């Protein structure tokens, strides 16, 4: 009974308060932050990097950096802004230093193991719904590729705006730019997506 009450109280605490508790040596608060942010972070980094293994590696690094910084933590910004800023910087640095270039190339080329098998064996899939499945897969690949091919800052802006539903001031703080610059970045990003996704927008694949 006591344990349940403790967890409810812990969940009600703000992220900033949880981080301050981590600073004071409370490992249970770190566990709560881990549970709350692991999915959004892995999702965001996965879409930034185009690879789930890389995303996991970088997300682990984000949590490690937060833990390392606990003694110097001062709540000067929203916790979400802080954690996504760390994640964005790690992702941008990782892409620039080329550690994950090989993986990105393989994903951009769409070379999945099942694709290679299909190319070699050339066996038509005659199962019911197979055509719809392929169309859905092509559509998903097109969307993913369109987002991945956006310039880094545009991609981060779209992901934070669309999927993380962040306010402009938060995204601007994460990307270290003004709000008006961010609106311009977002406009150009959606304009590029509109062109790249034209086959779907016009109903060719959908």
């Amino acid at each position: 009974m006591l344990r349940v009450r403790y967890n409810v109280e812990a969940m009600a605490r703000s992220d900033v308060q949880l981080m301050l508790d981590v600073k004071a040596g409370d490992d249970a608060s770190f566990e709560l932050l881990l549970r709350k942010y692991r999915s959004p972070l892995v999702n965001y980094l996965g879409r930034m990097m185009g690879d789930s293994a890389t995303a996991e590696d970088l997300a682990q690094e984000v949590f490690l950096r937060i833990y390392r910084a606990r003694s110097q933590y001062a709540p000067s910004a929203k916790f979400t802004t802080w954690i996504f800023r760390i994640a964005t910087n790690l992702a941008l640095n990782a892409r620039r230093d080329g550690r994950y270039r090989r993986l990105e190339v393989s994903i951009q080329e769409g070379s999945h193991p099942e694709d290679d098998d299909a190319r070699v064996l050339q066996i038509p899939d005659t199962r019911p719904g197979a055509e719809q499945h392929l169309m859905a897969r092509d559509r998903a690949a097109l969307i993913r590729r369109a987002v991945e091919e956006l310039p880094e800052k545009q991609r981060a802006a779209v992901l934070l705006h669309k999927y993380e539903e962040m306010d402009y001031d938060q995204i601007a703080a994460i990307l270290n730019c003004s709000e008006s610059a961010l609106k311009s970045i977002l406009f150009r990003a959606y304009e590029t997506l509109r062109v790249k996704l034209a086959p779907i927008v016009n109903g060719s694949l959908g």
Partner: protein
Amino acid sequence: MNCKAMEKYSVAYLDGSIDSRRRREVEAHLADCGPCRVRAHQFQEVWGILEEAPMVRPSASFDAAVRARVAQEASRSSLWGWLVAPSPRLAVGVTGLLVFSVWLSSLQPAARPPAQIVTAGDTEFKMIADLPVLEDYDVLANFEALSEVPVQPTTPTQPGL
């Protein structure tokens, strides 16, 4: 509102964060401008299409991996803290070393042998006292005792020495 200004408000119109006054202005422009109307419509479609992109989810081992890395970090930082942070053990150790050094240095003067120093000092004193005579060139050039000394032929240097 013109087409250029639409670029500024298109995204806010798309995500619904635009205020009501701007919304009316945007909608008035869209009613009159075909290209902007098409673009706004396609922005809405793109907005919906992006929802279809599958989520990237953490693996089952993700939490354990984070905990392992954090535990490793915690043990490393605690070792560093033991070495650097002020601790009674470290203070006692440093103080003991200091006291031992002071005690050792206080013993050293008594261990010196005084007799040899005095002998060496006498020899040095005589040599220094004769220096003005040796350094006076006129005295040495006209010193009769030296003229009686036969000149020694210089011996050739043996190879290998």
